[in-house]
């Protein structure tokens, strides 16, 4: 491919993915409210547009025009920086996730992934490990004890579950023999890895929920204990950025679960992108379902579960998979 064309294609891909991501984040809030209201036998947002479809736009406008408050005793630099630090990792992790097969367009063959790097999975874990900064710094900079405790709790939780998450995908790596997500999807042309790695998938899913700080692992922002956790003091667009980061993270982990365990964009009849989105939203629906169903963990339960149940289970899964691969 000639260089200018390469850059144009790259820019278009980035723009499309980024745009879709923003749109998905906005409408995920609507989806979550609607699904949860269905679970609780009520209507949910209905006023703005048909079935509340314009609600995210109304919310966005409202948040933009709110007063931006910075507490007097806050550390201004970090207070302003922290939401950005939360948002950036949430968005850039999508760069290595393949969302379709190679297609031919205008005589060029185009990969349906922004960048197929040979360390894709490691890159994702690297980026994911940076998400902690936005939260822990936001909590500290607010100079509020609830925020600080929420931030520290959240960071401890994310680090603990990141470990099991990393170990849970080692089985997938052993089966696909590559860190490139495109190749991992390629290795699932026969069977999806969820069939070969059911325990790995389960551990991954639990850790993904904990990583995104969602119920039943939403202790960092437990309203009843910590007011709102690390973002108590945040308002206006800064709050919106945390909010967006949370939903963007949710989309990313769902996309990762799809790619690693559910065969990525593979599927019969329908175009690959449709399959990819369908599986993605299935996983997201699962997340919302879990939130609507399960009560919150207590902090010591959460830590005990992460270190004494998930971690040994993930290690056992690796040993069994290794034996299986060696004997094959």
């Amino acid at each position, binding site marked *: 491919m000639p260089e200018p064309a390469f850059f144009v294609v790259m820019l278009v891909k980035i723009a499309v993915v980024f745009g879709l991501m923003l749109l998905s984040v906005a409408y995920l809030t609507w989806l979550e409210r609607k699904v949860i209201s269905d679970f609780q036998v009520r209507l949910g947002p209905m006023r703005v547009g048909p079935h509340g479809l314009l609600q995210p736009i109304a919310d966005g406008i409202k948040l933009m025009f709110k007063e931006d408050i910075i507490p007097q005793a806050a550390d201004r630099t*970090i207070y302003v920086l922290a939401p950005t630090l939360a948002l950036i990792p949430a968005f850039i992790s999508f760069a290595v996730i393949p969302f379709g097969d190679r297609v031919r367009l205008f005589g060029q063959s185009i990969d349906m992934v922004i960048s197929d*790097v040979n360390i894709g999975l*490691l890159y994702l874990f*690297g980026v994911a*490990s940076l998400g902690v900064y936005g939260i*822990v710094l936001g909590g*500290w900079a607010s100079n509020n004890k609830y925020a600080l405790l929420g931030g*520290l709790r959240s960071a401890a939780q994310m680090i603990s579950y990141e470990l099991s998450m990393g170990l849970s995908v080692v089985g997938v790596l052993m089966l696909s023999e590559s860190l490139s997500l495109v190749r991992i999807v390629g290795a699932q042309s026969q069977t999806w890895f969820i069939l070969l790695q059911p325990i790995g998938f389960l551990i991954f899913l639990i850790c993904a929920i904990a990583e995104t700080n969602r119920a039943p692992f939403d202790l960092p922002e437990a309203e009843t204990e910590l007011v709102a956790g690390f973002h108590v003091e945040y308002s206006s667009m800064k709050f919106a950025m945390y909010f967006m980061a949370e939903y963007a993270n949710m989309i990313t982990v769902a996309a990762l679960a799809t790619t690693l365990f559910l065969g990525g964009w593979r599927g019969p009849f329908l175009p690959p992108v449709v399959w990819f989105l369908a599986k993605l939203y299935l996983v997201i629906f699962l997340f919302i379902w879990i939130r609507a169903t399960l009560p919150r963990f207590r902090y010591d339960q959460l830590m005990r579960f992460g270190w004494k149940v998930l971690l040994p289970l993930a290690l056992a899964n690796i040993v069994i998979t290794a034996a299986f691969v060696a004997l094959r």
Partner: protein
Amino acid sequence: MEWLLFVPLAMLALATAALVILLRNPIYCALALVGTFFALSGLYLLLQAEFVAVVQVIIYAGAIMVLFLFVIMLLDVGHEPPPWLRQDRPRLLLGLGLVVLLVLELAVAIGSWIAPGIRGPYTSDYVNAVGNTQLIGRLLFTEFLIPFEITSIILLIAIVGAMVLARRQ
């Protein structure tokens, strides 16, 4: 082209490293150090060491510095008076001058030095063909197996030691 990436990354590394030792607020120091780690990670990518580059971010930025932030936030460490306002400033400046001189001397001495010795088999073409991560994995589990296992023992000892030290009596 390589210089175009090397020079900004080197500048970033030096500037953030200087901030680490000059800023008064420990939290800012820690964040500056994270910046240094990122610059170094970029340099590793430039040196075609992708695995090391990503592990640098995961371990240093993702784990070690978060641990530092934790401790700084929990201990409520006060601000230290800036080093340049201390009593022994003349001696400090003298030492600083000597260090700068030493580094400059070193730079002149190795400015045009090329490492002698036998070149190994891992040329960049070969590494690109096989994959950096694959090669490191293969070496870790064959040639460096015993050091690798010892590393796990070291980490285990560290876990136990940290628990014993930090626990309240």
